[in-house]
């Protein structure tokens, strides 16, 4: 794979067969990509609408991106502008309560889960999926992080608080220890059944029925306690990218499967903090050959419906993007046109410079 062959763009109607292929390969009930073609088509249509919406963005928009490698779709990722848009967005918040009895001379720190709506209205990162063959490459970085640069460029459409749900522990049969200990007690049905019954509607439909008193973790069976904040293995890659980005995973967990919900503030995320704008300049001698000063960057053409993101070797010491750079040719950029760039290697990341491939 050549990193410069990767291109992230908004989903198009013609991508339906490719998305069906990705959905079929993804793990059941864990990836938020529906397998039903009709539902997939709806997702695409909603995304087309979202990207096309001019200035009256309502918060209801869901955006879907696809990642191409040399023209072939190999992954997708999405954004929901506002969590729980029409309704409330439920999470469990980890809280520690200190119980004290002076009479017994005991103070005890108790872990509790509080049903909350803290993340209602936050922007959600969704629908991350990449073909397994690309997991060990830089492609997932582009697929996940380019969304943040899109949000930054169109900040008026999004919340400054960004969150992402991550799948919790469950086995191949769909048994989920957290659900079995908590949700099942109130619904007397399987996790999968509950999801099916809610019919893809907002989870608040079910969450409204959950008890509002805090759950004392010590009272749960051990396997359920262990599952709190634990990731399903399929979630490790997208989770690790978000963690390196500066998302925080200790506060919220999913009310159904106990998986960690990460949160961050847009301006505090490393990719966003490191963004600089670069304009297309004139030809310079170092243009084509990536020299010692060149480093891999995520580059974005900051439009909305014509948003594009890719990877490129750029010399950040240069005041402008040389007009002879292959990116200019590939994206047909013109003189003085602005692009956003953010270093692929984040602050604190130990990967070596220039080893993107």
């Amino acid at each position, binding site marked *: 794979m050549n990193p410069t062959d990767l291109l992230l763009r908004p989903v198009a109607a013609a991508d339906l067969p490719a998305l069906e292929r990705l959905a079929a390969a993804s793990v059941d009930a864990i990836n938020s990509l529906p397998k039903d073609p009709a539902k997939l088509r709806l997702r695409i249509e909603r995304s087309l609408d979202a990207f096309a919406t001019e200035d009256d963005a309502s918060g209801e928009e869901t955006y879907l991106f696809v990642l191409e490698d040399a023209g072939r779709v190999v992954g997708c990722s999405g954004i929901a502008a506002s969590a729980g848009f029409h309704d409330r967005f439920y999470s469990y918040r980890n809280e520690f309560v200190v*119980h*004290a*009895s*002076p*009479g*017994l001379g*005991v103070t*005890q720190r*108790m872990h509790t889960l509080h049903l909350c709506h803290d993340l209602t209205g936050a922007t959600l990162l969704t629908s991350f999926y990449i073909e397994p063959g690309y997991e060990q490459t830089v492609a997932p970085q582009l697929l996940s992080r380019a969304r943040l640069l899109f949000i930054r460029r169109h900040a008026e459409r999004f919340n400054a608080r960004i969150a992402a749900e991550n799948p919790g522990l469950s086995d191949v049969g769909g048994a989920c220890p957290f659900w079995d*200990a*908590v949700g099942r*007690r*109130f*619904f*007397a049905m399987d996790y999968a059944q509950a999801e099916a*019954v809610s019919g893809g509607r907002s989870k608040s*439909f*079910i969450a*409204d*029925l959950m*008890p509002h*008193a*805090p*759950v*004392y973790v*010590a*009272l*749960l069976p051990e396997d359920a306690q262990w599952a709190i904040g634990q990731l399903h293995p399929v979630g490790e890659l997208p989770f690790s990218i978000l963690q390196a980005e500066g998302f925080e995973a200790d506060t919220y967990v999913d009310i159904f499967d106990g998986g960690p919900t990460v949160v961050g503030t847009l301006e505090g995320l490393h990719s966003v903090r490191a963004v600089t704008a670069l304009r297309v300049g004139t030809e310079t001698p170092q243009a084509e050959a990536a020299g010692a000063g060149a480093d891999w960057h995520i580059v974005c053409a900051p439009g909305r419906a014509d948003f594009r993101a890719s990877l490129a070797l750029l010399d950040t010491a240069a005041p402008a993007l040389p007009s002879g750079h292959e990116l200019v040719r590939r994206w047909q950029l013109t003189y003085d046109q602005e692009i956003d760039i953010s270093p692929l290697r984040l602050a604190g990341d130990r990967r070596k410079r220039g080893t993107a491939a």
Partner: protein
Amino acid sequence: MKIDRYATNAALPASFVQSLGGWTNQLGEPIDPELAAGEYWLVALDMAGSPAACLRWRAALGWDTPRYHYHVGRAVHASAELRLFQTQATLLLCNDLTGDAEIADIAVDAAVDEPQRVLADLIGFALRHHHPAGRIVVELQGIRNEVGESPFWQGLGRHFYAGDDRAARLRHGVKWTTHLAALLPRQLLHVPLLGDDAQRAIGKVGAQSKDLQRALAAAGFEYRGHVRIDDGGPVVELGRLSDIDGNVVSAPL
């Protein structure tokens, strides 16, 4: 059978104090003869004049030290769309019984032939001589297994207090549950989140209280959804909640 009444510590006969040393009350605890304000002893004497059974009448519980119980309630989870209608038991820490009269430290000598009849006589005497405005309550022991462990405690209390509940009870006496309550959740607890054994133990009477339970039932006492917070044993109640609005009840100073 003769029944004596002792209202002051000074009046307690040595024979009674001595008997108490070998008795345990209906909760399985040793008995301290000391009387507090508003309390007195009723002691049943056998034909030979020896103490055979006793009870402590307490005019108002929880005035000096707050007393806690669990109120066993119900929560409904219903959704017409999901065709779901589920009722669940709940536990809420409460001081509901504060100010009620209490019959405590009920004990019968192990040598007594018909303990249930003796208890009935003793309780009947107490009820004939006292007509409190509000309720009269009695705590009964919860169930325990062969080795003395309470399934209710195993399912709930031990997660909040790591020590031995029985040892702590003996050490702290009537204040034990007050101290324990400080460590328990203040919010509603959904019973299905406790283990099955703990759920089944709620409101169930242990061996130590069986005879007493029958005698109390015959006198009209009934379980109305209050249980002990350590072993889940029931509180049985007689009479109505005082007409006085619960909000304005205050301790006599």
